[in-house]
């Protein structure tokens, strides 16, 4: 039985024009790209447009891709830049007001009960509401760090900025989001005094 091709094999084949190899590469990476684009833009349609543009650029630019750099870093770089452009364009069109408008209270009411099973969609709505208050770069840094799990050095490479600047953006983003949680979504932060069974185990 033949083993599935590894990533460098797929990249080489796709760079040589192999559409099947490229399709497989897209299949492996698309969820990550779409998720990052969505958390930065806050809109599915924008995220899918961004992702389509990202993979089109990858298809057209794979021949020039320097394999000494991680493919994911390149993908995130294109994704974040396109998503920030999309976010700014939507902001210029007044799109952010949709998120910050009257629906905010309704969204706040949907914050999950700490004792209940985690309502991830409510967490998502809370994030989309609060993240609209972040500058695009702060939002991108927060998404890459907290949701995608990249470390500061990786984010610095993706964004082409110093790691210290990444940490600064992250600190600012956390402060703004923390204040937003305390004000609008206190239910996201469980009362730890009522807990304890899991502490210290593991």
């Amino acid at each position, binding site marked *: 039985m033949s083993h599935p091709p590894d990533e460098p094999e797929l990249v080489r084949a796709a760079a040589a024009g192999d559409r099947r190899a490229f399709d497989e590469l897209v299949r492996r990476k698309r969820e990550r790209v779409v998720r990052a684009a969505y958390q930065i833009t806050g809109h599915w349609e924008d995220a899918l447009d961004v992702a389509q543009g990202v993979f089109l650029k990858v298809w057209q630019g794979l021949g020039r891709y320097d394999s000494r750099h991680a493919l994911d870093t390149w993908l995130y770089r294109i994704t974040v830049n396109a998503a920030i452009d999309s976010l700014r364009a939507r902001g210029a069109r007044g799109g952010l007001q949709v998120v910050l408008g009257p629906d905010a209270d309704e969204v706040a009411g949907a914050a999950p009960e700490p004792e209940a099973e985690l309502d991830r969609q409510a967490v998502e709505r809370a994030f989309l509401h609060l993240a609209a208050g972040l500058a695009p770069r702060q939002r991108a840094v927060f998404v890459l760090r907290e949701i995608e799990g990249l470390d500061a050095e990786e984010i610095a490479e993706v964004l082409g900025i110093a790691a210290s600047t990444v940490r600064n953006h992250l600190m600012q983003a*956390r402060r703004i989001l923390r204040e937003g949680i305390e004000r609008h979504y206190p239910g996201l932060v469980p009362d730890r005094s009522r807990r304890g069974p899991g502490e210290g185990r*593991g």
Partner: protein
Amino acid sequence: MSGHLSQPTVERFDGLDRGARAEAVAHVAECADCRARLLAAEPTRAFALLGTLPISPARLDRLSAALAREIDRSSGRAAARPLRRAASIAASVALAAGLAGLTGDRGSPSVAERAGLGELGTSAEAAYGRVDLLSSPGEAQVLDLRVGGTQVVMIFDKDLEL
């Protein structure tokens, strides 16, 4: 992951490597106790859970389908370009050859022979005429050929590489 997050894991959450962090987040998504301990230290960690949200396969398939169409479309356009170019050059060569006939210049090889594989500009020069590119990039391309006392204006697709 077996059991709950250890206290050192909770305390060092920000310093965990990607694999250990992903494992901890996956556990916290299912375990209310550990979620409470993790968020007590930093409430914004709640948003780390968004990394575990699945994206609907229908959305992802829609992306792949749209991407495939766009690649096909752009490949088709690239393939059509040389065809259009060949057709235009052939037309211009034929036109220039006709013009050379009008000027009565029979002493040199025909323009069609000399310019058949050359640039369009060369074909006009071969006919002792002048070529002015009048358009700007991004507009339609306009060639103004003056051969002898005859002036011919040709308009080309703006994407045609002349």
